[in-house]
């Protein structure tokens, strides 16, 4: 038997039902990993009691021979964007410091109902705005990975689900929740060599998840492999009448239908994703991915998504616009921090509270969003961006006439060092160039780890599918996974 800490969701399930270990042993193992991982700064709050309580429930259920939930006995990390009842939730922002939700988000509640326990709340980019986890008010998350140059440069785990990426790759948690607005699950997954899945918009309820950009935000699993992602997404997803954008559809049994034989499937290769300055290693990996999918029985076709280059600028209008409005509620009146200078009136209190409580990137995006919605600019910016979004969505629709899935790189580079891009917002935004288009179109997409670059850092490939066709995304991901045989993991230095 391998180490418990190396096991993922399916491994834990099989071990528990096979009687190899108890859920309490699993929980204790990971709780130990969590407390040893402080140098990574991945957790904002640790909740060992929650994990242990869930483990005890699991052990009882197993002993009683009850029907078990999909996540039974699996202790997970929870991105701090999910409101957790009685557990401080801040979205890694100073403005929510001390906020203790009196309610449980639908996604976390679903996971707990399926038997998962919670190890703690995971650090992230503040309000999910960032691609390197450097915008957290509570310090950077440090990637467990190191370059193979013998140095000890701290690397970015990607973002915004940086804490989630770090703990899964560091084997500190077997799985973690993420959220993806423009790539926040897939890009960090690629940076740390794990699997991350963003489902179709509307599959996972947004109720109780702190909003960044409502028309884009989707929760999804971050785990060791494709199978674990399928299991976990089944537990997270489902119709929620409390979310008006939730899809009223049953959750398929994705795990049971996993099949890496891609005979009869057509995989599109979008030519517009061959961007300038792409590292040769990523290009090569993409070619390798094409070969692997052919080997799995798929046919490869060239497709064109002509509006791809406009996806990122459209995203950087739409997401900040929605955010500027979504974040108006953080005003120091009902929860969170309040800054009340002497003699300040109500409006002064708002301005002071928000100045002190929001980080620089959040303020930048709120201001951009405010500007593009303001009188005289709304049509030129916001309406135009939503029209371009329609065109981007139509590009995908047209592509589906000639293929079933798309294969692209996940990110234009491997993980970079903390601080290396922090001064240039635009350079940082470009990290999401491959992930944003499918976010704008609401499509399911996943990142699968498929190789290491010359520095010994993970690289990922992305599969994009049709709306609601998570199954084929999982299947193609599995085909890549089986052929890539990616087993690298970071050496424990912390």
């Amino acid at each position: 038997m391998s180490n418990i800490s190396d096991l993922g969701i399916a491994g834990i399930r099989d071990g528990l039902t096979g009687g190899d270990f108890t859920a309490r042993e699993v929980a204790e193992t990971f709780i130990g990993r969590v407390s040893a991982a402080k140098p990574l700064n991945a957790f904002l709050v640790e909740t060992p009691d929650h994990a242990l309580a869930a483990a005890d429930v699991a052990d009882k259920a197993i002993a009683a021979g009850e029907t078990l939930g999909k996540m039974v006995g699996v202790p997970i990390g929870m991105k701090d964007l999910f409101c957790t009842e009685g557990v401080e939730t801040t979205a890694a922002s100073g403005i929510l410091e001390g906020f203790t939700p009196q309610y449980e988000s639908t996604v976390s509640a679903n996971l707990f109902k399926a038997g998962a326990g919670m190890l703690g709340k995971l650090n992230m980019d503040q309000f999910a705005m960032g691609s390197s986890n450097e915008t957290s008010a509570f310090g950077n998350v440090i990637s467990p990975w190191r370059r193979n140059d013998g140095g000890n440069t701290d690397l970015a785990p990607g973002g915004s689900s940086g804490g989630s990426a770090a703990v899964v790759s560091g084997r500190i948690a077997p799985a973690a929740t993420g959220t993806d607005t423009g790539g926040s699950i897939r890009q960090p997954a690629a940076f740390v060599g794990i699997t991350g899945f963003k489902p179709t918009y509307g599959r996972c309820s947004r109720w109780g998840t702190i909003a960044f950009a409502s028309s884009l935000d989707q929760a999804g699993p971050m785990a060791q492999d494709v199978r674990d992602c399928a299991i976990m997404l089944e537990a997270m997803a489902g119709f929620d009448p409390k979310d008006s954008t939730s899809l009223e559809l049953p959750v398929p049994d994705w795990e049971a239908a996993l099949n890496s034989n891609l005979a009869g499937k057509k995989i599109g290769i979008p030519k517009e994703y061959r961007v300038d300055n792409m590292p040769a290693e990523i290009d090569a990996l993409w070619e390798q991915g094409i070969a692997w999918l052919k080997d799995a029985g798929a046919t490869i076709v060239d497709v064109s998504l002509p509006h791809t280059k406009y996806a990122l600028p459209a995203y950087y209008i739409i997401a900040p616009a929605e955010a500027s409005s979504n974040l108006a509620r953080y005003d120091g009146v009902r929860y969170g921090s309040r800054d009340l200078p002497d003699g300040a009136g109500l409006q002064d209190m708002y301005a002071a509270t928000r100045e002190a409580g929001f980080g620089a990137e959040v303020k930048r995006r709120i201001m951009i969003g405010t500007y593009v919605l303001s009188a005289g600019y709304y049509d030129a910016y916001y309406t135009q961006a939503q029209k371009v979004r329609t065109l981007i969505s139509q590009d995908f629709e047209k592509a589906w006439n000639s293929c079933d899935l798309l294969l692209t790189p996940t990110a234009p580079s491997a993980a970079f060092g903390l601080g290396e891009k922090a001064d240039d917002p635009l350079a940082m935004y470009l990290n999401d160039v491959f992930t944003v288009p499918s976010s704008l179109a609401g499509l399911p997409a996943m990142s699968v780890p498929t190789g290491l670059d010359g520095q010994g850092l993970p690289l990922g490939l992305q599969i994009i599918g049709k709306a609601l066709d998570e199954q084929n995304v999982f299947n193609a991901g599995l085909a890549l996974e089986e052929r890539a045989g990616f087993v690298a993991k970071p050496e424990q230095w912390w």
Partner: protein
Amino acid sequence: MSVDKQTVQKIASLSRIAITDAEADALVPELNNILGWVEQLGEVDCKDVEPMTAVIPNKLRLREDAVTDGDMRDKILKNAPAAEHGFFGVPKVIE
């Protein structure tokens, strides 16, 4: 379209974010850099294109008119920086 310092101050005020003079100065090139970049969208011919409304085809559901919520003042006020006598407290407002 590019923003000047006065516009930056106006946006900050609309956003209710207090900024200093120096911060406003620093934000001018920063925001212009981003705005200049997103303005490439203007190149796209969007004649006869409808702006996106629902990314995945879906219908707005309406709920029944029943009282199913509320009656939880303690939970509502639990995290308030200032709450008294069942109310939230804010600095006195003159209307």
